[in-house]
């Protein structure tokens, strides 16, 4: 697993590592991928992937309002917020 790949997936996951840990993580990932590569040992060409162990379909809901206004509760427990909005550092588009 090359440095670039590790950097890409780290960024996709919004995780960063210091120099020391970078090496360990790279090694761990390589080993784990090598471990799961065992899956190649078997031919699955016509097999339908199993997305859920349940052989059933979903129930849906009626289009009726059932939620309460939890604005105060949500904003109070946010890491940074004012009376109306969640706040994050200014995003430049």
């Amino acid at each position: 697993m090359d440095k670039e790949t590790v950097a890409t997936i780290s960024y996709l996951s919004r995780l960063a590592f210091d120099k020391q840990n970078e090496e360990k993580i790279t090694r761990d990932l390589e080993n784990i991928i090598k471990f799961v590569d065992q899956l190649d040992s078997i031919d699955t060409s016509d097999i339908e992937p199993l997305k859920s162990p349940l052989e059933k379909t979903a129930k849906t809901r009626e289009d009726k309002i059932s939620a309460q206004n939890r604005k105060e509760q949500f904003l109070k427990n946010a890491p940074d917020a004012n009376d109306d909005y969640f706040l994050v550092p200014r995003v430049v588009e």
Partner: protein
Amino acid sequence: MTWETVIGLEVHVQLSTKTKLFSGASTTFGSEPNTQVDLIDLGLPGVLPVANKEAFYKAIRFGLATNAEINQVSMFDRKNYFYPDLPKGYQITQMEKPIVGTGSILINVDGAEKLINITRAHLEEDAGKSIHDLFDGETGVDLNRAGTPLLEIVSEPEISNAKEAVAYFKAIHQLVTFLDICDGNMAQGSMRCDVNVSVKKIDDKALGTRAEIKNINSFKFIERAINFEVARQIKRLEKGESIIQETRLYDSIKNETRSMRSKEAANDYRYFPEPDLLPVVISDKELEEIRITLPELPKQKEIRFIEEHSLEESEAKILASSKAMANLFEDASTKTKDSNLIAKWLVGDVSALLNKENISIEESNLSSVNFAKLIERISDKTISGKIAKSVLEEIWVSGNDVDLIIQEKGLVQIQDESILEDIAKKIIEANPDQVNAYKGGKEKLFGFFVGQVMKETQGKANPQGVNEVLKKLLDT
């Protein structure tokens, strides 16, 4: 060196369900920030989505109206990326098996019809809103919109110029409002589109690299953005430079497209099937029910207007073309009897005002109650047709009540025969030469007298009454 343009549109239509796609929070527009956010919309640990059946029904209506395949078993996928207004860090969408498959829609450009094929239409949840300019150095996040159901309609890249693109967007707008699946209010963001634009030399087989212009929500801006972008691309290619495949934003103030150049462009969305939602199945019975209860489409309405209200075909077509227009027509017709007068005004003066500003009826200040009243005041001769025009213009600007305007501006038509006679007598006495000339055979001078009475009454005299009185006084 002739270039041709290839355009594909992805239109995001906010479905007019009462609640969100996966939670029971309200979707009402314009509420106080963060007051319509359920536990599920916030993406709290442990929450799970449950699909809103009505959203599926609305999506299916679209599919049926565009003769599309309906996937009765539809599944959801996760699109993973980080953004402050995307609470879960992923959007639930349909990648693999969208609810609506290939269909088509007819567009009309300057009288010519063209069929545009639609690749697919799928359900997905909308994100919240990020507000960048209100807070000192910070961005505020309002999650009211997060979770609102969207129908993303993807066209084949069969659109060849900005005019066609606008026609297509208008056709979609008309269809979704008629189907009652979207309120069509673009100012409120009910419909937005992303435009994919590329150019190529006419004899080239291969398509050019495309740029995507994101989030345009007006007919006017689509046209301008495309025109700018096409010119930009051609200019670059003629210089020998290449087109970068990227996302761009349209700046309506500077009338240009700008590269977004954010790392988002390098995003790998890592789509995979949503494990919290099992497939949703729409039964044959439900499908049939939706088919039967499909709202009246423009063509059917047109025919009905001709039959029920004895309208001209051209008038009926225009009135049936917009749900808001059609509703306004039908509404006003219940309040006042003269359908033909209503039609004439809608097709004439009201349409002219709408086109001038390039807005839709919902965006105007004209309410159906007020409009009906205006027509009634013309019918009952309170005001003349000419005065009515200025009243309409006043309503357009202020939205004030018709009767209030008439009263404040003293526009009540003068109909009293004795008053008109007095004024006419005065004019006749003041203009003996013209009287003689008229009586001598210059019949056209009748108009002069009419004009003078009108001037004297500031246009408020009832034209018919003026004619009768003058005839009586002059022709004896």
